[in-house]
């Protein structure tokens, strides 16, 4: 299984701090684009849809980046919050039967090389996607807690920001989810 895990090189010279929000956003993009693709690759099997959802997330992020405050949480947590909204909207509109292209505003179609790249990314997430499907019986909020902390490696604090809940509420969700998983494993 081939994975696309390499982090792209920044265009800004190393060691120099970002001089503008655009440069700062570029660093955020470079740090997170692959992770966000993975998030959507666990949810969709269609490369074009994974690409469109990733694009939609970053377009929303760039529009709101001036309001993002890194002191309140990591950029990754913030992006996961946006991604969750993007995916929820996608699901709502899919359920409403709207055309996929209309849903996301008609992003640029992928060429063959890009389809292959994204398909490899989907492949790389297959095991994680299977794992998430096995947890499908968990309530959605608890599944999201497990995914962000145990699969994505966010701290509980970051995950709480991503899900828009208090740290206390998030810890309760996470704790409940882990208890249920332990109980489920014991029963099998």
């Amino acid at each position, binding site marked *: 299984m081939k994975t*696309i895990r*390499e982090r*792209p*090189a920044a265009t800004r010279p190393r060691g120099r701090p970002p*001089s*503008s*929000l*655009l440069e700062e*956003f*570029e660093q955020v*993009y*470079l740090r997170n*684009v*692959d992770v966000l*693709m993975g998030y959507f690759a666990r949810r969709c099997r269609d490369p074009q849809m994974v*690409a*469109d959802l*990733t*694009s*939609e997330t*970053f*377009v929303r992020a*760039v*529009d709101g*980046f*001036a*309001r*993002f*405050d890194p*002191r309140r949480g990591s950029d990754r947590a913030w992006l996961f919050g946006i991604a969750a909204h993007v995916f929820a909207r996608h699901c709502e509109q899919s359920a409403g039967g709207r055309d996929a292209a209309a849903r*996301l*505003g*008609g*992003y*640029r179609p*992928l*060429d063959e*090389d*890009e389809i292959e*790249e*994204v398909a490899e990314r989907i492949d790389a997430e297959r095991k994680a996607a299977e794992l998430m499907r096995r947890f499908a019986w968990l309530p959605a909020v608890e599944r999201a807690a497990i995914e962000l902390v145990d699969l994505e490696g966010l701290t509980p604090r970051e995950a709480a920001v991503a899900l828009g809940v208090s740290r206390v509420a998030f810890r309760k969700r996470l704790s409940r989810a882990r208890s249920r998983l332990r109980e489920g494993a014991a029963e099998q």
Partner: protein
Amino acid sequence: MSKYTDNLWRDIAREHGAALALAERPEAAGTSFLRRPRVLAGSTLGLAGAGVAVFLAVGAASSTPAFAVTKDADGSVLVNINQITSLPHGGNAKLAAMGVGGLIIQMAGGPATVSGPVTCTRAPGATGPIVKILVGKNGTEVIAPGATPGNTGVGTWHLASCQTTGPDTGGTGNTGQ
């Protein structure tokens, strides 16, 4: 960078880069997270200590720029930036009418080393007339204490660099908005 992520970044930078270059992050009360540039009264132009890139969005209906625009006999466009004097509104529309898509201006502290206007470079693909920018009367702007309310840029300023860009300032294409 993979081809897909490379292309996605290119699209984002092309369609949203100018707006983000202009944007600044709001400063929380009582903190100094980001230095807020001193903004000239009624203008889209800002100045910051070490220099800041500013995009003058041509054609933006809400902007009331503090700069004067004139056309020289050789066809070049002269933009005079001077917040001390009262400058006419509508400069952006005038620039657009002269075929200038937009300007990215980098200001720096201190007096200009060379007197007179600075000729802007062109961004790749940018078209339109040659644009020259004159800061103040001779290349240096002097901002005295109390010149404008809330002015944090007291001192001398000069134009470090400027570049003309294409007319597309975002809002079209595959933004999905």
